[in-house]
């Protein structure tokens, strides 16, 4: 007697499963516990073990297709059996489901077989925003990872979540809500903050400033207990390639210095208190840092340069990038010509860029060609770290957390200072140790006694 094979709940929270791959084809014999297909749940890709025995007579949901829990995905029975009524019933169910799903937006997850061209990395990354579905497979039904509709247009967030996001500089549009009706709630903000911290550990180049990206599907704990093969996205490949290239071709060395961040934070508070509320939010510490870096680069133009094989290119402008963590990677939006801009202007441009970065809207010219890069893991609580140089630049500044330390003052008394560790990674082909050290101590002086530079 032929039976329908139903989609099972393969994770406690799953509502819909996507068939990633069929391991059996029509006509194959199926024994109990045979893996007949792989199903992508909201958490992971799981093997579907058959509870039925017989011959796989009909596949109802092709690879890439989706089925709700309890919906038939195939028919198993004896070879030659008449299964037309079962198939018909299943198809009717599928049609009504499709009709119900008709109003939803198109697929958001690219299938595994989208191959971005590696010859044009920048464009490949751009293309990934709108994945093309190749082959004859039906487009995946529009169901985001946990069955909660992604945010579109109207933003649903609890008042507490809004307040916390505002204080932490989190862009709510990058988050997926887990509250009633997909509302963003406190735990989503806390999760985003935690995930930023785990990013930092995984990738040497980190998140920036107060603006922080959202919820990657791979970072959550998996309930299955099994190892997972996670397909590498086009963007991931580019990140891997660029960072390896930089790490293995540029001889890195690292310089570390402690900086008294007190004056800078005081100046920042004064500035923020003076700025009108509607002027676009508080100026971030990153804007200050970028400005100071730009001023020091003016003093040490040889740090603002690039190794070109047989020449060294010394840049005419100071274009500083900031590393920003995204849901599925990281990106380095660039503030152009920082040498001629004030802190507030840098901050406003930075906010727009970060916003675009978090919603995947940066144009290639907005994230390439930085002459110097700043990466900050301070918001994740990191004290100090080393970063990988972001070509074509020859140096990257890794910024740690501002924290209070006891210090012995010049007069022998003990005081409290807000310390910040700066680690400069330099490409030795371009910047010699003495030059790197001089630049870094100039930057320290700039941050600690900005007024001195006006004399």
């Amino acid at each position, binding site marked *: 007697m032929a039976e329908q094979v139903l989609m099972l*709940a393969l994770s406690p929270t799953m509502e819909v499963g996507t068939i990633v791959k069929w391991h059996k084809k029509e006509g194959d014999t199926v024994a109990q516990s045979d893996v007949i297909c792989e199903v992508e749940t909201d958490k992971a890709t799981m093997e579907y073990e058959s509870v039925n025995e017989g011959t796989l007579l009909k596949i109802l949901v092709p690879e890439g297709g989706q089925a709700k829990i309890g919906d038939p995905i195939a028919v198993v029975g004896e070879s030659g059996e008449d299964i037309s009524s079962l198939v018909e019933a299943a198809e009717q169910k599928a049609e009504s489901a499709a009709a119900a799903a008709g109003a939803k937006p198109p697929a958001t997850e690219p299938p595994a077989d989208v191959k971005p061209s590696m010859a044009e990395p920048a464009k490949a990354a751009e293309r990934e925003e709108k994945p093309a579905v190749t082959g004859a497979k039906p487009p995946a039904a529009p169901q985001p990872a*946990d069955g909660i509709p992604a945010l579109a247009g109207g933003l649903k967030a609890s008042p*507490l979540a809004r*307040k916390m996001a505002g*204080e932490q500089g989190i862009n709510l549009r990058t988050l997926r809500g887990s*509250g009633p009706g997909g509302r963003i709630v406190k735990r989503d903000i806390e999760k985003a903050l935690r995930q930023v911290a785990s990013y930092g550990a995984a990738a040497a180049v980190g998140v920036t400033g107060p603006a922080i990206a959202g919820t990657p599907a791979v970072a959550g704990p998996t309930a299955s207990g099994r190892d997972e093969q996670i397909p590498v996205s086009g963007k991931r490949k580019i990140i891997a390639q660029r960072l390896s290239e930089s790490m293995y071709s540029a001889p890195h060395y690292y310089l570390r210095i402690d900086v008294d961040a007190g004056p800078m934070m005081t100046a920042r508070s004064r500035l923020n208190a003076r700025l009108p509320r509607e002027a676009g939010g508080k100026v971030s510490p990153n804007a200050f840092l970028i400005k100071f870096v730009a001023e020091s680069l003016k003093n040490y133009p040889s740090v603002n340069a690039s190794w070109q094989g047989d020449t060294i290119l010394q840049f005419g402008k100071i274009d500083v990038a900031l590393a920003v963590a995204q849901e599925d990677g990281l990106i380095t939006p660039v503030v152009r010509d920082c040498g001629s801009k004030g802190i507030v202007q840098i901050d406003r441009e930075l906010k727009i860029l970060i916003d675009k970065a978090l919603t995947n809207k940066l144009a290639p010219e907005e994230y390439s060609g930085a002459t110097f890069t700043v990466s900050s893991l301070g918001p994740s609580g990191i004290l100090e770290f080393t970063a990988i140089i972001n070509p074509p630049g020859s140096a990257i500044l890794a910024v740690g957390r501002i924290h209070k330390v006891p210090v012995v003052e010049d007069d022998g008394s003990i005081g409290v200072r807000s310390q910040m560790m700066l680690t400069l990674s330099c490409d030795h082909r371009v910047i010699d140790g003495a030059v790197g050290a001089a630049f870094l101590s100039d930057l320290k002086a700039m941050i600690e006694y900005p007024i001195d530079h006006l004399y």
Partner: protein
Amino acid sequence: MANYEYDLLVLGAGPGGYVAAIRATQLGMKAAVIEKDKPGGVCLNIGCIPSKALIHQAELVRSGKELEEIGVKVDATGLDYSKVFAFSRKAADTLSRGVGYLLKKNKIDLISGQGVITSAHEIEVKGHGKVSGRNLLIATGSRPRSIPGFEFDEKTVLSSTGALMLEKLPKRICVLGGGAIGVEFAHIMNAFGVEVHLVEMLDHLLPLEDEEAVEVLVRSFKKRGIKIYTSTKATGHTKSGKAVKVSLEGRQGREGKRDLEVDQILLVVGRVPNTDGIGLEKLGIKLEKGFIPVGSYYQTSAAGIFAIGDVLSSPMLAHVASKEGEIAVEHLAGRQTPTRLDPNSIPGAVYCEPQLASFGYTEKAAKEAGLEFEKAVFPYRGAGKSVAIGKSEGLFKLLVDKETREILGAHVVGAEATELIHEILLAKTAELLPEDIAVMTHAHPTLSEGVMEMARMAEGRVIHV
């Protein structure tokens, strides 16, 4: 795959078990409930429901005093407590039958008899035989705790069950234990004219509640002549004729030793989980301080076995058990569900006069946790309605995170507090801020205006103080 008679076997038909079984059937499971007593558990039969019936009667008697103020002559001499008792039993029986009806309506089999788990899929029911199920849910609840020297005989030393079953009240009673149950009984007995001595070992009544809120209740109790002994321990008792002598000892010599002569003792010092004699050892479940340890969805250490309610270390409250049961079965059905209840969003309610209701941090707990918080305390008398109905004693207290303005806890003591708490709790669980309550228009005149004013106070814009 093995065949089971049921998808889910629930051991215990209290507010945890029967709600879980109904929810399970709604989710397509076939469920049975095993109960040795009447459906509804302690809550319906010998707990919340009959005690609220008594409290209602007590309040009717007390309202006689208000009538006297306007010249009505109330003659309470005919008060027949056995009729009060009968009223409370009627309420309990009606609701217990109601649970039986609900189970039937949902096609849930109610199996009567004591159940003992014999394997991961089987429960042996006395007088019925073995029943099998794919999953088991342990919801066996709890029973009154006794202490050495005060074993329950339900004549001299009463448990809460014994007190609810009294058909005749004593002249004098000593209530040992100043928790919610003790305070409620003190209130009932006092209203019916019993001389009440209320003894608590810790330094204030309702030790888990906010001290400032409890203070309001204590003042009211003292005014009514209830004798309160805090930081005091009962060391023993001796019968002397019809009376009983209770030996009390103040902590660290405070007030020293003294003897109280009363007619009966009511011992309400907590409850013990019913985790013995139900076959847990067969499942390899190891108890932690008598409680069953569970995971985020109330799974026990034995595969496929869940546990909810008073057998867990979560607060022993009917509404907690019900919610836990729902979470467990929804998880079983593969539904997306929130995990364990947030302890700071569980309301507690004490039904005496004035009522006390609360959730979340007390001021003391918030301080101990090192939280940066602000508090707002708005008096009942600031809400005109409370004065109009002659119930102006009480306060609304709110604790708010200094930075995020998140609601950390709320404590309402006064008339209808147990109803008023929910507006604040809804705000908390929906993550609304005091500002949201403050700007919402509240009807005038209501007690709920006090909630609004409390929120306004937290935001520095209170009007009526």
